């Protein structure tokens, strides 16, 4: 992958990636999340994905993509710590597979840029009818959050953990604000994004001429905008606190437990290799302590895994447990962490985890998604962009003590449990 700045706050990353059958063009907009505009920015991708100025109708848009052999146009928004990230992407088969010799790549570029920079407006705002329909969709999605208990548990824990900090802005939107959103407010949020976002254009699987054409077209679009990119949101860490235990009651068959830990200070890029190995050892792999001991040996849960978020210096442990075993499972999760901090770590388990991570990094560039995710996460984290090979070398140098040093920094802040009310149910 090669990466260049092509304008202030705008970068191009590209890789010809010839081995793939498809190509992908994506335009990432990253900007600091704000409480005031969170719901508008949650609605924005839904409205943008329906169509754009040259193809405003949702059904016609779907047909257009089907004509391009089912090309996948997506507008999605993802929270990245204190940043909000909106991505317009299109992925489709390469020209060489077109049955009628169509110039597919050109059409992909036009669709991605059109969707990002020429939304369908009625007068000077987004189409009120489309906004009205998508508001209902956003409301449904927010109301349905509770149907997926694992996700709901994680989100409730996050809400408690981050509180009013910038990382606590609900980037999925606030249900009570959806009805009040107007096309004008949405349009304002859109223009704010165009003006202030750091933009990353990622072109994968296209030849040099096509890549240059996409880059030039993007720069032409940006030349019409009074751009003032904001600095990238810094990585944070929540301060340590006395653990809070939160319980909600649902009549489910299995209880869900989410425990959130803080590193206490923002993660530094040079710590990342040790964090990766620490996660694999604690709960991020099938050779981890949580998997082998809490799940396999103690049978306390079907899943029990840890994951780390570098933007917020936070670690989550998620598990599905028997209602009656929830307290025991929480103690077991804490004990495994304490054992790694203070007890023996064998060469065998350390090397098994390292080997698994190294092998995974080896295969990262075997998928378009793997390449894009790796490099874009590197960009968002700040610091120098590491290649998978750089990361492998760093991982090889991590020692047992490095792992311990990282794990010792984690302290429990929030434990969120979804369980039955006592005396309800049969098991």
């Amino acid at each position, binding site marked *: 992958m090669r990466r260049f700045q092509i304008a202030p706050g705008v970068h191009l990353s590209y890789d010809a990636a010839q*081995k793939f059958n498809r190509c992908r063009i994506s335009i990432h907009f990253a900007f600091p999340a704000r409480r005031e505009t969170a719901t508008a920015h949650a609605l924005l991708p839904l409205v943008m994905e329906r169509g754009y100025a040259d193809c405003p109708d949702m059904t016609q848009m779907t047909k257009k993509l089907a004509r391009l052999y089912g090309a996948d146009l997506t507008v999605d928004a993802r929270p990245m710590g204190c940043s909000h990230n909106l991505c317009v992407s299109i992925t489709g088969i390469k020209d060489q597979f077109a049955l009628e010799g169509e110039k597919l790549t050109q059409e992909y570029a036009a669709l991605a840029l059109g969707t990002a920079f020429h939304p369908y407006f009625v007068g000077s705002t987004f189409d009120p009818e489309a906004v009205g329909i998508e508001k209902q969709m956003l409301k449904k999605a927010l109301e349905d959050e509770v*149907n997926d208990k694992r996700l709901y548990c994680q989100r409730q824990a996050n809400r408690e953990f981050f509180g009013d900090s910038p990382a606590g802005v609900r980037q999925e939107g606030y249900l009570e604000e959806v009805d009040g959103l107007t096309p004008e407010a949405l349009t304002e949020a859109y223009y704010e994004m165009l003006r202030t976002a750091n933009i990353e254009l990622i072109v994968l699987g296209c030849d040099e001429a096509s890549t240059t054409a996409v880059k030039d077209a993007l720069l032409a679009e940006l030349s019409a905008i009074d751009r003032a990119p904001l600095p990238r949101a810094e990585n944070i860490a929540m301060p340590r606190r006395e653990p809070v235990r939160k319980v909600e009651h649902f009549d489910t068959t*299995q209880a869900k437990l989410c425990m959130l830990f803080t590193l206490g200070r923002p993660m530094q890029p040079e710590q990342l290799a040790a964090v990766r190995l620490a996660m694999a050892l604690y709960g991020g792999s099938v050779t981890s302590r949580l998997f082998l001991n809490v799940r396999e040996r103690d049978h306390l849960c079907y899943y029990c895994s840890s994951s780390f978020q570098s933007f917020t210096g936070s670690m989550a442990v998620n598990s599905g447990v028997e209602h009656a075993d929830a307290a025991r499972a929480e103690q077991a999760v804490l004990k495994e962490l304490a054992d790694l901090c203070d007890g023996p770590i064998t060469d065998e388990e350390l090397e098994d985890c390292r080997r698994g991570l190294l092998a995974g990094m080896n295969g990262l560039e075997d998928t378009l998604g793997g390449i894009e995710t790796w490099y874009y996460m590197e960009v968002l984290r700040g610091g120098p962009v590491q290649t998978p090979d750089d990361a492998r070398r760093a991982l090889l140098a991590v020692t047992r003590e490095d792992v311990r040093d990282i794990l010792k920094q984690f302290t429990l802040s929030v434990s969120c449990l979804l369980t039955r009310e006592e005396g309800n149910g049969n098991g």
Partner: protein
Amino acid sequence: MAENTQSVLERTAADQWKVLPSGLTVLVRPMPGYSGTHVIYATRFGSIDRDFRLGEREVHLPAGVAHFLEHKMFEDEDGDAFAKFAKTGANANAFTAFDRTCYLFTATEQLDESLDVLLGMVGHPYFTEQTIAKEQGIIGQEIKMYDDSPDWRLITGLCECLYHSHPIRSDIAGTVESIAEITPEMLYDCCKAFYAPGNMVLAAAGNTSMEQILAACARHGLMDERPAEKVERLLRPEPMTLAAAEKTIAMPIAKSCFGLGFKEEPLPFGDLRSEMLYELILCCICGGMSPLYRRLYDEGLTNPGFGGEVLRVDGCCCILFTGESDQPDTVRQLLLDEIERVRKEGVDREIFTLCKNEKYGQLIENLENVEDSASQMADFALAGQTVAQQITMLAGLTAEDADAALQHILRPERMAVMYIEPDGTAVEDEAEEETEE
């Protein structure tokens, strides 16, 4: 199609196929430039294979044995296969479906060693009363996890409505009670019957070659002839009537979910053409380009994920529609009206062609990464087909074929409805909070 496109396509979709003297089918797709290799070892043995004759004996299994066996296959006298994969760095997993069990890994290094672990663990099953008892706890937890999934409950509930006796009525993982009946003898019988090489497929895609895969097979005796036990699957006759027309359950969810199931005539083994045709018909009736989808979407009658799917296994074929809605009966009526309209007027020619286009793109996409590529090869091989045959078959399907098929599928008299209502507990209330002193 341009000649150049044809040759690119043939090269991309080509896979190497061999049937070994042991009966094992081996498929390999070398993918230059890729670091990893994905390998799948699959048997035509899934949760529906509950009753069979092995030699002169009849064997009857409780629900959930195939899935239980999948878990136990990772363990032998020397310990856990995951621990062995950890020595090679391979990322291993397995899954059980209604009609198959698949063991798989992705490796970027030590491929030979990883192949040895995979072929060794599946080739040398080891079960005892103690190891079985140990697994019951973990699988019990897995069963409970799925019990809380409304999407999965819709599928299993619809199957219970549509079928009187077909084993698709039972959950893939069984129940806590059914897995308590499992014995080592049952598991060994299943291995003899269904883990014979002649019933299996080994598919590999990525940084490998047929020579490398065959060498691994040779190390595990798969190049030698194997005597095969005589196995006959026993399926009780299943009438085309419904077991129940409607079912309602309550769960802790915020919004109602619903499903509509249509019972269809079972398809013969290897008939992937009808399955693909049914999928195209569903795309025309309620896919993203259809007028029905647009109406449901604009009027907020369902969630964006509403859609139909074909579920077909030995002795069973059904079409299921699932989604979320506050007005499931309105959606049901709109769907039935649309089916009748399309049955009468024929499928929209433009939409049918575009649905074919999408399918073609999907087949090409699935050849792109090592996981999808090996999975697609194994899936088609289990039905005796290749990816290239699928592409040719797709090209040959016409709107007239769809019109003809529609005269006998999606009949309202063979439709069942399943509702999942909120039980009232999934409403926001004040959570209890406690701060540790």
